[in-house]
């Protein structure tokens, strides 16, 4: 069968909402795009543990500490589900980790911002996880089976992340003047970077159709970003706080909130490695990997030894 026929069959499957599974024929570009997207998503989960890990030892109560540990542990798990999904496409775990450590593969730029106060644990849960969830809910229906299954599992676990974040801010918003100020400051710092998580404006992207046609993605950056803004603009009223955008205003005609211009220079600068914490984040990942090497080797040596013993016995 000529390649065109394979491609046609492949597209028919996608159009019929059939999932693509690891051993099925797929176009190289579909495989490549999925590997890139899934592995970068996995890296985001793993690097995303760092800003929060920063506050585990300084959480204000035992309850908050337990919650934060559970959340960070979830993120490690989410990274693993995603790495496994990417591995089914033929890239080894080692290769992916190496690409992260060399800076070749990216992770969500949001994690290159520092977590300066306890309120940031709330803002990250509410805004950052909130933005991520919008993407992830969409991805539950992505066309590649292992990715879709990983996303379903992740979405189930992730909803607690956003709720605990909002609740953390809610407590602060009803606290002392100092706590209220901390809450507002944190929202101010995380708002714009959260909007950047959805990527550049649709009008500035080229070749955007293919991902949609293959149903890897089902909504555009701007659609998702608008959903997010509409949702948060309502929720912030409950906190009695404000979003740092004086252009934010309900547009009755559009039935959406209008909002101000995002600083795209900042976005690209952070993507290129010049954000406040890029170097720190990568250094932390490399260190963890390098210092864990002897453990990985020892575990393998122990397993080999035990295998020999069982054989001998």
């Amino acid at each position, binding site marked *: 069968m000529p390649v*065109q026929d394979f491609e046609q069959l492949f597209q028919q499957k996608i159009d019929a909402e059939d999932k693509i599974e690891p*051993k*099925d*024929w797929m*176009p*190289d*570009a579909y495989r490549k*795009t999925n590997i890139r*997207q899934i592995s*970068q*998503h996995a890296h*985001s989960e793993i690097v995303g543990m760092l800003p929060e890990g920063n506050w585990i030892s300084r959480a204000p109560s035992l309850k908050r500490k337990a919650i934060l540990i*559970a959340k960070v*542990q*979830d993120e490690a*798990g989410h990274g*693993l*589900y995603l790495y*496994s999904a990417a*591995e089914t496409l033929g890239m*080894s*775990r*080692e290769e992916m980790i*190496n690409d992260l*450590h*060399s*800076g*070749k*593969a*990216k992770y*969500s*730029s949001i994690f290159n911002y520092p977590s300066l106060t306890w309120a940031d644990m709330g803002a990250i849960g509410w805004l950052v996880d909130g933005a*991520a969830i919008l*993407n992830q809910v969409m991805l539950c229906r992505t066309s590649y089976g292992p990715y879709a*299954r*990983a996303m379903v599992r992740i979405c189930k*676990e992730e909803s607690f992340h956003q709720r605990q974040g909002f609740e953390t801010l809610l407590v602060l918003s009803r606290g002392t003047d100092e706590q209220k100020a901390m809450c507002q400051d944190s929202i101010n710092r995380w708002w714009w970077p959260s909007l950047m*998580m*959805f*990527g550049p404006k649709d009008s500035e*992207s*080229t*070749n*955007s159709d*293919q*991902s949609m046609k293959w149903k890897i*993605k089902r909504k555009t*950056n701007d659609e998702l970003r608008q959903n997010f803004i509409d949702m948060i603009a309502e929720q912030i009223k409950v906190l009695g706080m404000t979003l740092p955008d004086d252009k934010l205003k309900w547009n009755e005609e559009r039935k959406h909130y209008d909002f101000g211009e995002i600083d795209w220079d900042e976005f*690209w600068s952070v*993507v*290129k*490695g010049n954000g406040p914490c890029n170097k720190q984040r990568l250094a932390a990942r*490399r260190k963890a990997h*390098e210092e864990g090497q002897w453990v*990985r*080797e020892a*575990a*393998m040596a*122990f*397993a080999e030894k035990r295998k020999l013993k069982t054989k001998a016995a």
Partner: protein
Amino acid sequence: MTHTFIKKLYYGDIPEEKGGGSNYQTKDDSTTWPLWEVFIRSKQGLDHKHAGSLHAADAQMAIENARDVYTRRMEGVSIWVVESKYINASNPEEAGELYEPAIDKIYRHPTFYQLPDEVNHM
């Protein structure tokens, strides 16, 4: 049909040429832990169901890791692990030969038989 490389930038999908990068190389691990498939029984009386996969040095570590990764919210009461290399799978290209013979045998389904209404619950 030609495929253009996708430049659109969604969350978690940043193209390499815009990302900078360095020559850092992870030191080669002399050993890579093998891949395991994990099956979880969610409660007594139900089948073990494929949950996902993970890397571990041996079976015991695979079970312990599976506990941490796949049963954090009481999703399971029993875990099976098997090294992925021992799994044999049918080939999608043979799907026709394998499954089509069942398509025209509708008499294997109870709904094939029309019975009078008086015969309830058969």
